[in-house]
């Protein structure tokens, strides 16, 4: 075993990349949950986003177009969830599970012709001389545009929720949908939009895995990242900046265990691969004592008659 092969600077740079899929998906889910919708279909939307993005990027040769398609694919799938929970008033837990099961099947079907294909790679953003700063340059200024987009998204969601009227409306719907309805807010319409946003973000996160992290297509390649993103929203107490913190924590663990595998640590590979899931459980246990931050209407069905 030789731990000196793990370069801390490269580890931090890689951690940011490992965290981005979780970050994107969790930020989208955070918005949906702040509107009072618990969408357990994140895993399904991510994997559909992963294959939509992959297929379009391969066919068009443009990764950017792939990401647009991934967001569209994720949003389209989430529209099914929106229909089930907002129009036909189905149970959100069951509908979310259905979305994940359906998404896993659909992605496998769509991805049949793309196994073993190599996608076009996305160039890193060119910061010029900034990238040459020792240590900081490698950590901060040598990434692909989607990673920066993820960071900007967190800031935007934070600002939206905290400072704007739209954010206030979103939170009102999530805290008390009956009161929001009485105020004349369109509860269903707002929630559908929040669900679509969540779907688009999950799709982007999925495509980040298939186009940048891995980059190739295999069935079920998201491997539970969507579920970790769901856990992360709880971890973050429904606050955007804490999502960022949590995503980097999980990204760090994922990357570290991969590096340890590479360094040939005496722990078997399988047990190292368990670690992100075990840490998720541990974090959930530590943080689940305080549920006071959860949106009060989370997961409840709204019908104007009641």
């Amino acid at each position: 075993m030789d731990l000196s092969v793990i370069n801390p600077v490269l580890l931090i740079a890689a951690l940011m990349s490992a965290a981005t899929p979780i970050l994107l998906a969790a930020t989208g889910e955070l918005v949906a949950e702040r509107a009072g919708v618990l969408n357990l279909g994140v895993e399904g939307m991510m994997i559909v986003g992963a294959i939509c993005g992959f297929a379009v990027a391969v066919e068009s040769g443009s990764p950017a177009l792939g990401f647009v398609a991934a967001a569209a694919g994720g949003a389209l799938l989430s529209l099914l969830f929106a229909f089930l929970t907002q129009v036909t008033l189905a149970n959100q837990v069951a509908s979310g599970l259905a979305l994940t099961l359906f998404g896993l099947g659909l992605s496998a079907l769509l991805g049949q012709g793309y196994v073993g294909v190599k996608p076009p790679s996305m160039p890193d953003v060119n910061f010029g001389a900034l990238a040459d700063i020792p240590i900081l340059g490698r950590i901060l200024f040598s990434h692909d545009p989607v990673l920066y987009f993820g960071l900007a998204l967190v800031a935007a969601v934070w600002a939206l929720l905290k400072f704007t009227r739209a954010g206030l409306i979103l939170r009102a719907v999530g805290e008390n949908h009956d009161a929001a309805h009485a105020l004349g807010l369109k509860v269903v319409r707002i929630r559908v939009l929040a669900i679509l946003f969540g779907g688009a973000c999950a799709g982007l996160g999925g495509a980040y895995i298939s186009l940048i992290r891995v980059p190739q297509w295999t069935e079920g390649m998201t491997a539970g990242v969507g579920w970790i993103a769901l856990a992360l929203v709880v971890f973050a107490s429904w606050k955007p900046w804490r999502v960022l913190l949590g995503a980097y924590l999980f990204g760090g663990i994922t990357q570290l265990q991969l590096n340890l595998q590479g360094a040939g640590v005496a722990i078997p590979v399988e047990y190292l691969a368990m670690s992100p899931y075990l840490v998720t459980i541990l974090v959930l246990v530590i943080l689940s004592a305080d549920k006071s931050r959860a949106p009060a209407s989370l997961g409840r069905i709204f019908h104007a008659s009641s």
Partner: protein
Amino acid sequence: MIRLEKRPEPSRGFAWAAPILAVIATFFFGGLLFAFLGKDPVQSIVTIFWQPLFGEFAFYYRPQLLIKGAPLVLIAIGLSLGFKAGIWNIGAEGQYIMGALFGAGVGLAFYPAQSAMVFPLMVLAGAFGGWVWAMIPAVLKVKFGTNEILVSLMLVYVAEQFLASMSLGLMKNPEGFGFPGSRNLQQYASAHNAEIVADTGMHWGVVAAIIAVIFAYVLLARHRLGFAIRVTGDAPRAARFSGVNPSRLILFCLGTSGMLAGLAGLFEVSGPSGVVSIDFNVGYGFTAIIVAFLGRLHPVGILLAGLLMALTYIGGDIAQSQMGLPAAAIQVFQGMLLFFLLAFDLFTNFRLRLGRVEVA
């Protein structure tokens, strides 16, 4: 205009009609999907749903119905108890794996001793394995209020890694020429979950599934605990006032569903599958969620839904080999079924009203 009006009482008729409507809608849209894939939709549906039952080779496929249906029913019965009470165990796949590993572990430890005691011990170990794995989310929920959905699901991935480790390491067949996977339990008479009546598909897992259906029916219809489960699902506050202990209910529901999933895994690994290998699990734990909902969380409904779902697996295999229908298409088909069911369920609790909204 059309609007929804809440029914004063859920419609009993629609509660039973919704799954049937969902199946019909799935036939239609599934057919469209198959047509889109360039297959003849009618022929696809016939291949999937008719051939295994009444086709030329039905004598071969009918036993498969029991073999594939038993684990689905066994797991779904356990899940339905929790789902009824609002306790969401969605990690049955992990409990299934752990049950198989515990059970097979006991069997392999006794190899090559021949004794009538080996198989019963394996059954106990399998049930224990699933139970222990489900007790992790249960205890965490009771002690710390941790979300059982996320914990039980995370444990699926942990169990999959554990399975990989076992089939490549501790349980690897020492006479297997280095190939991954354990000894074949089918060739170890004391540990083999053989067919009780030859060529019927009737193995001990099928017996266990039938017993589980009967027990669940009696529990829900006649026992105080079943009443507690139903009240907790419908009105948690009322349940508390009527003296239901929520912690005990959580431990019971998750424990039972884990135990049944573990049993399903054990019967599979010691019978139809035979070998502990990396890809031994085929997702029964997740499909069972669809089975539980499609069966309306009712034991008899689950039995029928389990058989229907088993049919889609078998028919899907046939359609795959005869018509080149991709395996994933069947997965999509199964997912669609759950979507339509959830959508049609609207009419159980609501009805459509045409006309203007009267002013109250």
